[in-house]
């Protein structure tokens, strides 16, 4: 009898563990700790959204207020986040992570700023136009990843096709991508804002919209960074625009009539509300960042824009 009870109990425990191991419900993520093992915890990225408008009044005036929550809620995670979480324990951070930043000993090269995923997009009036895009730093940049592969002279070359895509070696790319390490000393840490995690995503999206980034690039940005920004309640954002990035990582674009707008947001997480009286390794931003923002009013035939988010390495 005891054996049967033990077997029954073991099966229940095993089943519960297996469920946690395989999947978490929408809006939750799988975590692992030494003391508890695997468990599902709520993600900050998927806080319940308040819908207004056709859903009627919000609050006590809503006649549906006492109804139970729906059994099915759409999973807003992109497919790659669900798969990545299944394979890797640190899917919801930009790399191996230990507060307040990336564990840099896992990566080659130098530079305390880990610029993750600068994506380069194009908008052109041409349907078929040759281009090349070359990194021309006097010293070789500390790249961590690129798509597609750069040639030996650190150049992508091909054609702008369908007005907003790149064709390289006969393959169409929606954007050109690189990860790179950059020197912290050459970045600015005076201008910026401190906001909640959700506020940080909204602030960066708004900033990109001010610079007229295309809707597809904004969509990619939001999809990627809602997943990859670690869960901390507050972030200080230090935007680096052309005035910082062009000297650090100069680029030459071989196509007539072009403009290249660059924006890289260095994010510094905070576990509690930023207090200016606490000592800080990185000073809180005190100046309005918009004065550095590149102007986007003048349009050229070929507009290149890149966005990226960076974290500090320790």
């Amino acid at each position, binding site marked *: 009898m005891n054996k049967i009870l033990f077997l029954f109990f073991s099966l229940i425990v095993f089943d519960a563990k297996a469920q946690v191991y395989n999947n978490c419900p929408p809006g939750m993520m799988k975590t*692992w700790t030494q003391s508890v093992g695997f468990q599902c915890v709520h993600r900050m990225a998927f806080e319940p959204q308040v819908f207004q408008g056709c859903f009627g009044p919000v609050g006590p005036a809503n006649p549906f207020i006492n109804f139970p929550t729906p059994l099915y809620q759409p999973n807003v995670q992109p497919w790659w986040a669900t*798969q*990545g979480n299944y*394979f890797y324990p640190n*899917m919801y951070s930009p790399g191996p992570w230990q507060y307040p930043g990336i564990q840099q000993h896992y990566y080659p090269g130098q530079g305390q700023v880990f610029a993750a995923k600068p994506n380069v997009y194009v908008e052109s009036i041409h349907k078929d136009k040759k281009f090349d895009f070359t990194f021309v730093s006097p010293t070789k940049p500390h790249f961590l990843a690129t*798509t*597609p592969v750069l040639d030996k002279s650190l150049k992508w070359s091909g054609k702008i096709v369908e007005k907003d895509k790149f064709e390289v070696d006969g*393959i169409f790319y929606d954007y050109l991508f690189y990860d790179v390490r950059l020197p912290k000393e050459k970045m600015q840490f005076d201008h910026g804002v401190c906001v909640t995690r959700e506020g940080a995503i909204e602030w960066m999206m708004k900033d990109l919209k001010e610079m007229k980034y295309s809707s597809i690039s904004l969509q990619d940005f939001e999809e990627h960074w809602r997943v990859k920004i670690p869960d901390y309640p507050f972030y200080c954002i230090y935007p680096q625009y052309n005035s910082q990035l062009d000297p650090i990582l100069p680029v030459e674009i071989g196509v007539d009539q072009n403009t290249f707008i660059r924006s890289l947001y260095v994010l510094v997480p905070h576990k509690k509300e930023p207090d200016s009286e606490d000592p800080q390794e990185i000073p809180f931003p005190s100046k309005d960042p918009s004065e550095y923002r590149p102007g986007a009013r003048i349009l050229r035939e070929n507009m290149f824009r890149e966005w990226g988010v960076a974290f500090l390495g320790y």
Partner: protein
Amino acid sequence: MKYAFLFILLTFNAYAISIADSISGKVATVDGCSNKVMVWLSLDKEEYKERLLLMHTEVPVGGSFEFFVKPGKYQVRASDKTGCEFLKKVEVKTQHIEVNVQMVKK
């Protein structure tokens, strides 16, 4: 003495620069899989909690990618939204490694 100094200098430089090499490749697939693939690079560990993800990039089929890494053992994995997969374990010493991703249906 002169050679000893030269040896120390070279050794010091090698570590200061932090030796790096790369893993690059192209992506191929089969009918029924997606035309875009996520290529993942992680530490080569069996235990889930130790299999740290280092980088990932979305690559169109036929496209190419490159990861710059320290010497060590890694897993190059690829997946797409239809469930097609690829996995290869590699050891990087001081040479460039080519890993061509061939997606297969599960």
